[in-house]
Structures are given as C-alpha cells and as structure tokens.
C-alpha cells in the first residue's frame, strides 16, 4: 500500500522509516514560525527557566497581527521580541513593516517542499502551497519546539480533493474553497491532511495554491498540500532557492485516503460565506443585493499580489460607492512595492480606497472595526461573530473580484456583471 504526503513528510521529520495514521510521533520540524504570539513564547521560555534555543536558524518571527503597535502593552511585547531576536541572533526576524508572516516567509524563500513547519497560527496550513507540511500549534508547543526541537504529532489520515479545471469565468481559488467548505462543512476535514489534486492544480499559480491551502484550515484540516511541479520550482528559483536546497515529497499513486471528493471547477459560480460561520456558504445569486458598509480586501487568504491585481481590474476607472468604506491591506511590503510600481496601487487610490500598511489589519481586528448592525464583505478567511468590532455586526466572505464589484455598487455583487 502506498503512502500519502503527510505519512511521508512526518516520517522524515521524525527520523523514522514509516509512520501510520493514528500513530503519535516525536517530530522535529524544520521551521518554527511565531507571529504576535512570539512574546508569549518568550515569557513561557523564561518560566521554563531555559535560555537556550535548540536551533536558532529554525526560528522565524514576524511582527504581524497588530502592526504597528496600538497600545503601550503591544509596543512592550514587540520590544521584548526585538530584544530576544537580537540576543539570540534570530536572523529570520521581521518587524512591523514586513507584512503577514505566512506571505513574508514564503516570499523570503524559507518555505520549501518537503519541510515540516509549525506556526502559532491556524493558517500555517498555507505552506502546503509549496509542498510543505504546515500546521498550527499553540504558543506553549512552539516554545517546546524552540527549546527541545521536537513536538508530538498525531499522523493524520488524508482527504483527496480532485478539482477539474479550468474554472468558470468570474470564479477563483477562493470560490473553489468556499464551495468545498460549504459542502464538507467546517469540520469536514478535522485532523485530516488535505491533498489537492486534479487538472486545475497542475501549473496553478503559487498565489492560488496559497489560497487553497490557507482555507483548508476552515475545513478543520491539519495541513493542506499541492504537489510541487515546475511552477513551484520556478517560483522558488526566482527567490534564490534551487532544487538542491530541498527534497520534494509526492504521495504515491496507490496511497490510502479516508475520503475522496471531486469538484468540477468548470461549473463553479462565485460563492459567499454568510455570517457567522465559514461553512454557511451560498451561491452569490442568493445573497446579491445585500447592502454593505465596508469592503475589506486583505488577509493571508486573499491580499497577495495576484489578488490585488484581480480586484483592481474591476475597480479601474470606477469609484467606490458613496457611503461605503473600501479598506485594502496588501499582505506584504513586497506586494506594496510591486503594486506601486505597476500602477495597481494608484487604481485603488483613484477609486477611493483606504490603503493601509501591510499586515493582518482588519482580519485580526487591527483597525476596520464595525459598529452595531454594520456589514462587511471581506476577502479574509473567517467571519466569526465579533471578529471585526461589534458582536452585532456581520461579515460576508468572498473572492477579491466579488469584493471589488461590491465596493463599486455598495451591495453584494456578482463580479461576472463586470466581465
């Protein structure tokens, strides 16, 4: 019987010949990512009475979530991280100007096929976009890895999702995932490793792969995975990472999956996740016309360069509807620079958008709060009650194209009207 991606990746990271689903293994991750939670790890390490890192080169810290600091307490926490990074010589330290950890570390070439990566963030699943196994952990666990280099992990069973393409016009990787989450529900892949297969994924852009693996989290997944191919290798090569820097892992053709699901992208229509659950998904025609107060284009799910270009295509030469606030938060500093250089940034400005510094921004409740009864259409990955200000406000999730079309009309709008 063949092996899945997760079985192979965890066996390698545990230094074992093989592991079986259900088995608990001591795994040595290749990279430990911590964001705003870094200060909690530092405090926990102090409590532990330890001052020595297992391997400083595996430590990556990015000051996202609340950037820049908005209170003396946060400023103090961030100072603690800066000083820690300096003292221990953490080279992969990125300050408040860098952007969202997941996107920054991917752009920097630290995410490579075959790696096992843990992060203090549930969307660490995103690293599957480059054929790595990324999974979210709590800050105590991350601290444990800092100090001991290892962590217990249960070997997951796997779910195979086959997506056939090309996608129908006006739809994107976001619609693929919302459709899937609506069908499988928010715990449709709990504990599972989700592998994306099918013609749609072959040669797919790394940006779209990131959206797939990011949103796999909203199925409850342990990790997501898209098989590395030439697109992956080219992306990495552009970032100075050559094939001798990594060792790809591919699932066997006869690997055992607990479940397989097929999705026909050619028949897809834009999808919307309605309040207050990511699996409360409806095709757009059932929600179109809903009045919004705010549109947010941001987050690690959908504020990458390609996402902004997609939104700008619709916004170009148009204005944000009167009374609607359009917030755009590019995912990283590099993306700001690229959009400035190619004119995308100017399209947003001219349309009347508010552009923030790169980072989690409104997705982490860092700005962009709503008053009672207000409605936001967001490109992020979560619409839980109270995530953006008032507990009595509503968040709808959609693709960057839906967000742009909605910003122009002031009501939830099918982007195909603008094609």
């Amino acid at each position: 019987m063949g092996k899945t991606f997760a079985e192979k990746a965890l066996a390698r990271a545990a230094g074992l010949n093989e592991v079986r689903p259900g088995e608990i293994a001591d795994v040595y991750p290749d990279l430990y990512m911590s964001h705003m939670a870094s200060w909690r790890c530092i405090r926990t390490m102090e409590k532990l009475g330890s001052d020595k890192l297992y391997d400083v080169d595996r430590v990556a810290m990015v000051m996202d979530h609340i950037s820049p600091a908005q209170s003396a307490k946060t400023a103090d926490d961030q100072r603690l991280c800066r000083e820690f990074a300096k003292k221990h010589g953490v080279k992969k330290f990125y300050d408040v100007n860098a952007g969202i950890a997941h996107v920054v570390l991917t752009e920097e070439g630290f995410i490579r096929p075959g790696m096992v990566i843990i992060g203090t963030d549930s969307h660490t699943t995103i690293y599957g976009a480059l054929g790595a196994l990324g999974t979210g952990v709590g800050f105590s666990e991350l601290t444990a890895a800092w100090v001991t280099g290892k962590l217990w992990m249960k070997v997951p069973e796997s779910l195979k999702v086959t997506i056939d393409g090309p996608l129908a016009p006006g739809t994107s990787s976001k619609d693929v995932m919302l459709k899937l989450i609506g069908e499988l529900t928010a715990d449709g892949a709990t504990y599972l490793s989700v592998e994306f297969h099918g013609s749609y994924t072959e040669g797919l852009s790394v940006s779209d792969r990131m959206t797939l693996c990011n949103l796999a989290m909203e199925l409850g997944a342990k990790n997501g995975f898209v098989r590395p191919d030439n697109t992956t290798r080219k992306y990495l090569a552009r970032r100075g990472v050559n094939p001798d820097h990594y060792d790809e892992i591919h699932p066997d053709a006869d690997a055992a999956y607990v479940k397989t699901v097929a999705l026909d992208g050619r028949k897809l229509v834009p999808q919307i996740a309605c309040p207050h659950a990511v699996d409360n998904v409806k095709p757009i025609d059932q929600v179109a016309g809903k009045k919004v107060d705010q549109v947010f284009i941001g987050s690690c799910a959908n504020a990458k360069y390609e996402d902004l270009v997609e939104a700008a295509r619709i916004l170009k030469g148009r204005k944000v509807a009167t009374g609607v606030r359009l917030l755009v938060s590019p995912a990283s500093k590099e993306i700001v620079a690229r959009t400035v250089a190619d004119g995308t940034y100017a399209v947003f400005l001219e349309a009347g958008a508010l552009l923030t510094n790169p980072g989690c921004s409104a997705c982490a409740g860092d700005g962009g709060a709503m008053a009672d009864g207000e409605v936001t259409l967001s490109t992020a990955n979560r619409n839980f009650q109270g995530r953006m200000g008032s507990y009595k406000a509503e968040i709808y999730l959609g693709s960057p194209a839906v967000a742009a079309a909605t910003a122009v009309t002031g009501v939830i709008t099918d982007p195909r009207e603008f094609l």
Partner: protein
Amino acid sequence: MSEKIRGKAIKFGNNVDTDVIIPGRYLVSIDPQELAKHAFEPLGPEVQKRLWSSQVVVAGTNVGCGSAREQAASCLIGSGIKAVVAKSFSRVFFRNCINTGLPAIECRDAAEAVGDGGEMSIDLDGGLIEAAGKSFRFAPYPQSLKQILDAGGLIPYLAKFVLPQQALKR
C-alpha cells in the same frame, strides 16, 4: 494518579469557535484569571455567569474551531473548568487543551446525553463518564499525553522531565 473530575456541565452546540470562547481583543493577556473574565463574552453575561459556576464544558462537534489561540483553553481553566467533553474537537484546540493541562475528551454519547446544568463525573484513567444516570466509555489517553496532562500541561512537563535530562546530556 488522577482523581475523578466531578461537577456541573454547561452545554453548547456545534462549531463553537475560539473567537467566541475568547475574543481576539483580549489576547494581550496570558493570565488565565484575567482571560476568564472575557470567556464566552460574545454570548452575553448570562452564559458567562453559568460558565463560572460550572466545572465541565460540554459541546457538540468541532468545538474550538478557528484561530489557534491557546488562550481558548487557558481562559476555561481560569473559569474553573476541569474538563471539556465534546462529540469532536478541532485539532488545534484539542492540542491546546492537553498542552495547558485541561482534559479534552471525545465522547459522542456522553456529550449527547448530558443536559445543560447536569451533574457529571469523569474518570480519566478508567475512561468512564457518569452522567444522566448512565455510564459512557471513552478511550483513555495514550501514555505520552497522559504524562503531559498529569504534569499540568506541556510546559510544566518539560520543566520536570525533559529539560533536566537535556541538561544532563550537555
């Protein structure tokens, strides 16, 4: 070593997310007592009051879905909760419970049968829950997780067992 956990249940439905358990705005704290004041705040003061006088959180499927915030487990500890019993757990929340020393028990039938406010008793070693006049079995923890729970969480476990060994080897 562990004695039975006894107490009153507070019951929730499916897909209780961590933004509801502890809203993101309070994550500036890691103090369980401080966090407890805001546990389940989005559901209102009535629910909070019942939480603080309960000992077991009972929930449906996928409890603790959403953000990886460890405070979703520690705010319950600060609230006086001794165990979480659910039909199923989101994986990060399950890990966070174990690693902060809060027993997380997957037991579909018990989670179904226990009523809101009902009394229950849990025998971790024996894998037995008694509630609503019935008994329910669950698979006891494997030894590796049991050690972490017995130590009161991953960090105390490391401090007690793992780091002293590392120091010896160095």
